[in-house]
Protein backbone atom coordinates (compact mmCIF):
# COMPACT_ATOMS: atom_id res chain seq x y z
CA UNK A 1 0.00 0.00 0.00
CA UNK A 2 1.46 3.34 -1.07
CA UNK A 3 1.26 6.15 1.45
CA UNK A 4 0.59 9.69 0.29
CA UNK A 5 3.12 12.27 1.40
CA UNK A 6 0.55 13.90 3.68
CA UNK A 7 -0.32 10.56 5.25
CA UNK A 8 3.35 9.72 5.75
CA UNK A 9 3.92 13.10 7.40
CA UNK A 10 1.06 12.46 9.79
CA UNK A 11 2.49 9.08 10.72
CA UNK A 12 5.93 10.54 11.32
CA UNK A 13 4.54 13.43 13.37
CA UNK A 14 2.50 11.11 15.56
CA UNK A 15 5.37 8.69 16.17
CA UNK A 16 7.81 11.50 16.91
CA UNK A 17 5.38 13.24 19.27
CA UNK A 18 4.69 10.03 21.15
CA UNK A 19 8.39 9.23 21.34
CA UNK A 20 8.96 12.67 22.89
CA UNK A 21 7.02 11.55 25.96
CA UNK A 22 10.04 9.40 26.74
CA UNK A 23 9.33 7.01 29.58
CA UNK A 24 6.58 9.28 30.86
CA UNK A 25 3.63 8.24 28.73
CA UNK A 26 1.88 6.72 31.75
CA UNK A 27 2.26 9.95 33.72
CA UNK A 28 0.90 11.95 30.79
CA UNK A 29 -2.08 9.62 30.64
CA UNK A 30 -2.76 10.12 34.34
CA UNK A 31 -2.40 13.88 34.04
CA UNK A 32 -4.80 13.98 31.10
CA UNK A 33 -7.35 12.09 33.17
CA UNK A 34 -6.90 14.44 36.12
CA UNK A 35 -7.34 17.44 33.84
CA UNK A 36 -10.45 15.91 32.33
CA UNK A 37 -12.06 15.13 35.68
CA UNK A 38 -11.43 18.69 36.87
CA UNK A 39 -12.45 20.56 33.71
CA UNK A 40 -15.32 18.32 32.73
CA UNK A 41 -16.83 16.94 35.94
CA UNK A 42 -19.48 14.95 34.06
CA UNK A 43 -16.71 12.56 33.01
CA UNK A 44 -16.37 11.45 36.63
CA UNK A 45 -19.71 9.66 36.37
CA UNK A 46 -17.91 6.76 34.70
CA UNK A 47 -15.63 6.35 37.70
CA UNK A 48 -17.80 6.54 40.80
CA UNK A 49 -15.48 4.12 42.55
CA UNK A 50 -12.34 6.19 41.96
CA UNK A 51 -10.34 8.16 44.47
CA UNK A 52 -10.19 11.47 42.59
CA UNK A 53 -7.58 13.19 44.75
CA UNK A 54 -4.35 14.37 43.15
CA UNK A 55 -1.85 11.51 42.89
CA UNK A 56 -4.50 8.85 43.40
CA UNK A 57 -3.19 5.36 42.69
CA UNK A 58 -6.30 4.54 40.67
CA UNK A 59 -5.80 7.52 38.38
CA UNK A 60 -2.12 6.62 37.97
CA UNK A 61 -2.97 3.04 37.04
CA UNK A 62 -5.71 4.05 34.69
CA UNK A 63 -3.52 6.69 33.09
CA UNK A 64 -0.93 4.04 32.34
CA UNK A 65 -3.61 1.80 30.84
CA UNK A 66 -4.73 4.61 28.55
CA UNK A 67 -1.13 5.44 27.60
CA UNK A 68 -0.29 1.81 26.83
CA UNK A 69 -3.33 1.55 24.58
CA UNK A 70 -2.27 4.73 22.78
CA UNK A 71 1.29 3.40 22.40
CA UNK A 72 -0.18 0.28 20.84
CA UNK A 73 -2.23 2.45 18.49
CA UNK A 74 0.89 4.44 17.53
CA UNK A 75 2.60 1.19 16.58
CA UNK A 76 -0.34 0.17 14.40
CA UNK A 77 -1.38 3.42 12.77
CA UNK A 78 -2.33 1.68 9.54
CA UNK A 79 -4.16 -1.11 11.26
CA UNK A 80 -5.91 0.42 14.24
CA UNK A 81 -9.27 -1.36 13.97
CA UNK A 82 -7.53 -4.71 14.29
CA UNK A 83 -5.04 -3.61 16.92
CA UNK A 84 -7.75 -1.98 19.05
CA UNK A 85 -10.47 -4.54 18.40
CA UNK A 86 -10.63 -5.87 21.95
CA UNK A 87 -10.77 -2.36 23.42
CA UNK A 88 -13.43 -1.49 20.90
CA UNK A 89 -15.55 -4.44 22.07
CA UNK A 90 -14.99 -3.44 25.69
CA UNK A 91 -16.17 0.13 25.15
CA UNK A 92 -19.17 -0.96 23.11
CA UNK A 93 -20.51 -3.73 25.26
CA UNK A 94 -19.24 -3.17 28.75
CA UNK A 95 -18.08 0.41 29.36
CA UNK A 96 -20.51 2.17 27.00
CA UNK A 97 -18.89 5.55 27.48
CA UNK A 98 -20.94 8.15 25.63
CA UNK A 99 -19.05 9.17 22.48
CA UNK A 100 -18.94 12.85 23.50
CA UNK A 101 -16.43 11.98 26.21
CA UNK A 102 -13.74 10.81 23.83
CA UNK A 103 -13.42 14.36 22.57
CA UNK A 104 -12.99 15.60 26.14
CA UNK A 105 -10.19 13.16 26.90
CA UNK A 106 -8.56 13.82 23.53
CA UNK A 107 -8.58 17.55 24.28
CA UNK A 108 -6.97 16.99 27.69
CA UNK A 109 -4.35 14.72 26.14
CA UNK A 110 -3.48 17.54 23.75
CA UNK A 111 -3.32 20.04 26.64
CA UNK A 112 -1.04 17.70 28.60
CA UNK A 113 1.31 17.12 25.68
CA UNK A 114 1.35 20.84 24.84
CA UNK A 115 2.30 21.74 28.38
CA UNK A 116 5.09 19.16 28.73
CA UNK A 117 6.49 19.16 25.22
CA UNK A 118 5.86 22.68 24.01
CA UNK A 119 8.85 22.80 21.64
CA UNK A 120 7.68 19.75 19.72
CA UNK A 121 4.04 20.83 19.79
CA UNK A 122 4.07 22.75 16.53
CA UNK A 123 0.81 23.50 14.70
CA UNK A 124 1.50 20.69 12.25
CA UNK A 125 2.23 18.13 14.97
CA UNK A 126 -0.80 19.38 16.88
CA UNK A 127 -2.94 18.72 13.80
CA UNK A 128 -1.57 15.19 13.37
CA UNK A 129 -2.16 14.37 17.03
CA UNK A 130 -5.67 15.78 16.93
CA UNK A 131 -6.41 13.56 13.93
CA UNK A 132 -4.83 10.58 15.67
CA UNK A 133 -6.94 10.94 18.81
CA UNK A 134 -10.05 11.44 16.70
CA UNK A 135 -9.22 8.27 14.76
CA UNK A 136 -8.67 6.28 17.96
CA UNK A 137 -11.98 7.60 19.29
CA UNK A 138 -13.75 6.53 16.11
CA UNK A 139 -12.31 3.02 16.38
CA UNK A 140 -13.28 2.74 20.04
CA UNK A 141 -16.88 3.74 19.31
CA UNK A 142 -17.14 1.83 16.03
CA UNK A 143 -19.03 -1.14 17.46
CA UNK A 144 -21.52 0.87 19.53
CA UNK A 145 -24.40 0.05 17.20
Amino acid at each position, binding site marked *: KVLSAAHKNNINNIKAAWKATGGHAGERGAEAL*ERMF*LSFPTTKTYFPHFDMSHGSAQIKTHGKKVADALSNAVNHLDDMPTALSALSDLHAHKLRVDPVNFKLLSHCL*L*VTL*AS*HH*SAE*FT*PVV*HTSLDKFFAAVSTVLTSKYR
Partner: protein
Amino acid sequence: MVLLGERKRKDLSLYFLQLTRLLVVYPWTQRFFDNFGNLSSASAIMGNPKVKDHGKKVLTSLGEAIKNMDDLKGTFAHLSELHCDRLHVDPENFKLLGNELVIVLAKYFGKEFTPQVQAAWQKMVAGVAIALAHKYH
Protein backbone atom coordinates in the same frame (compact mmCIF):
# COMPACT_ATOMS: atom_id res chain seq x y z
CA MET B 1 -7.06 33.68 36.50
CA VAL B 2 -5.53 36.87 37.96
CA LEU B 3 -2.02 35.46 37.58
CA LEU B 4 -2.67 34.68 33.97
CA GLY B 5 -4.25 38.09 33.50
CA GLU B 6 -0.99 39.74 34.53
CA ARG B 7 1.00 37.44 32.33
CA LYS B 8 -1.38 38.29 29.53
CA ARG B 9 -0.25 41.91 29.53
CA LYS B 10 3.36 40.77 29.36
CA ASP B 11 3.13 38.19 26.59
CA LEU B 12 0.15 39.51 24.64
CA SER B 13 1.72 38.71 21.31
CA LEU B 14 1.61 34.98 21.96
CA TYR B 15 -2.05 34.49 22.50
CA PHE B 16 -3.39 35.59 19.16
CA LEU B 17 -1.78 32.39 18.00
CA GLN B 18 -4.96 30.67 19.04
CA LEU B 19 -6.67 31.95 15.90
CA THR B 20 -3.80 31.05 13.60
CA ARG B 21 -3.65 27.55 15.04
CA LEU B 22 -7.40 27.15 14.57
CA LEU B 23 -7.02 27.77 10.84
CA VAL B 24 -4.23 25.17 10.64
CA VAL B 25 -5.69 22.44 12.84
CA TYR B 26 -9.29 22.81 11.59
CA PRO B 27 -8.85 23.94 7.98
CA TRP B 28 -12.57 24.16 7.40
CA THR B 29 -12.62 27.23 9.65
CA GLN B 30 -10.84 29.05 6.83
CA ARG B 31 -14.24 29.37 5.16
CA PHE B 32 -14.77 32.64 7.03
CA PHE B 33 -11.56 34.20 5.81
CA ASP B 34 -11.66 33.99 2.02
CA ASN B 35 -10.32 37.53 1.66
CA PHE B 36 -7.32 36.97 3.94
CA GLY B 37 -4.94 36.04 1.14
CA ASN B 38 -2.58 33.08 1.30
CA LEU B 39 -3.82 30.34 3.62
CA SER B 40 -2.44 27.50 1.54
CA SER B 41 -0.09 25.97 4.11
CA ALA B 42 0.62 25.98 7.82
CA SER B 43 3.56 28.36 7.39
CA ALA B 44 1.52 30.64 5.11
CA ILE B 45 -1.19 30.83 7.77
CA MET B 46 1.23 31.36 10.66
CA GLY B 47 2.92 34.20 8.74
CA ASN B 48 -0.21 35.83 7.31
CA PRO B 49 -0.46 39.44 8.59
CA LYS B 50 -4.27 39.59 8.21
CA VAL B 51 -4.63 36.48 10.33
CA LYS B 52 -2.34 37.96 12.97
CA ASP B 53 -4.32 41.20 13.04
CA HIS B 54 -7.58 39.37 13.35
CA GLY B 55 -6.19 37.20 16.11
CA LYS B 56 -5.31 40.36 18.03
CA LYS B 57 -8.86 41.62 17.58
CA VAL B 58 -10.27 38.38 18.95
CA LEU B 59 -7.81 38.48 21.79
CA THR B 60 -8.71 42.04 22.78
CA SER B 61 -12.29 40.94 22.90
CA LEU B 62 -11.39 38.07 25.22
CA GLY B 63 -9.64 40.61 27.41
CA GLU B 64 -13.00 42.34 27.79
CA ALA B 65 -14.48 38.99 28.79
CA ILE B 66 -11.99 38.64 31.62
CA LYS B 67 -12.88 42.12 32.87
CA ASN B 68 -16.60 41.36 32.71
CA MET B 69 -16.88 37.78 33.81
CA ASP B 70 -20.10 38.52 35.69
CA ASP B 71 -21.93 39.60 32.58
CA LEU B 72 -20.58 37.80 29.55
CA LYS B 73 -23.94 37.78 27.79
CA GLY B 74 -24.22 41.56 28.10
CA THR B 75 -20.59 42.10 27.11
CA PHE B 76 -20.93 40.02 23.97
CA ALA B 77 -24.49 40.91 22.97
CA HIS B 78 -23.47 43.10 20.07
CA LEU B 79 -20.76 40.70 18.88
CA SER B 80 -23.24 37.85 19.09
CA GLU B 81 -25.64 39.64 16.77
CA LEU B 82 -22.76 40.42 14.43
CA HIS B 83 -21.59 36.79 14.26
CA CYS B 84 -25.13 35.62 13.55
CA ASP B 85 -26.54 38.28 11.24
CA ARG B 86 -23.49 39.47 9.33
CA LEU B 87 -20.74 36.86 9.70
CA HIS B 88 -22.94 33.72 9.75
CA VAL B 89 -20.55 31.77 11.96
CA ASP B 90 -21.71 28.42 13.34
CA PRO B 91 -21.38 28.69 17.14
CA GLU B 92 -19.58 25.35 17.13
CA ASN B 93 -16.59 27.38 16.00
CA PHE B 94 -16.57 29.36 19.26
CA LYS B 95 -16.02 26.10 21.13
CA LEU B 96 -13.21 25.13 18.77
CA LEU B 97 -11.54 28.51 19.24
CA GLY B 98 -11.93 28.39 23.02
CA ASN B 99 -10.27 24.99 23.18
CA GLU B 100 -7.49 26.17 20.89
CA LEU B 101 -6.84 29.05 23.28
CA VAL B 102 -6.60 26.61 26.18
CA ILE B 103 -4.09 24.49 24.25
CA VAL B 104 -1.99 27.52 23.31
CA LEU B 105 -1.97 28.62 26.96
CA ALA B 106 -0.81 25.12 27.95
CA LYS B 107 1.98 25.25 25.42
CA TYR B 108 3.26 28.63 26.56
CA PHE B 109 2.77 28.26 30.30
CA GLY B 110 3.86 24.63 30.53
CA LYS B 111 3.67 23.30 34.07
CA GLU B 112 2.12 26.52 35.40
CA PHE B 113 -0.97 25.62 33.41
CA THR B 114 -2.07 23.20 36.09
CA PRO B 115 -5.27 21.16 35.93
CA GLN B 116 -6.90 23.71 38.25
CA VAL B 117 -5.91 26.65 36.07
CA GLN B 118 -7.12 24.78 33.00
CA ALA B 119 -10.48 24.13 34.66
CA ALA B 120 -10.93 27.85 35.32
CA TRP B 121 -10.12 28.70 31.71
CA GLN B 122 -12.43 25.97 30.37
CA LYS B 123 -15.26 27.56 32.32
CA MET B 124 -14.44 30.93 30.89
CA VAL B 125 -14.18 29.89 27.26
CA ALA B 126 -17.40 27.91 27.63
CA GLY B 127 -19.06 31.04 29.02
CA VAL B 128 -17.75 33.14 26.16
CA ALA B 129 -18.96 30.58 23.60
CA ILE B 130 -22.43 30.58 25.16
CA ALA B 131 -22.51 34.39 25.30
CA LEU B 132 -21.47 34.68 21.66
CA ALA B 133 -24.21 32.26 20.64
CA HIS B 134 -26.82 33.83 22.87
CA LYS B 135 -28.33 36.25 20.33
CA TYR B 136 -28.53 33.76 17.50
CA HIS B 137 -31.89 33.29 15.93
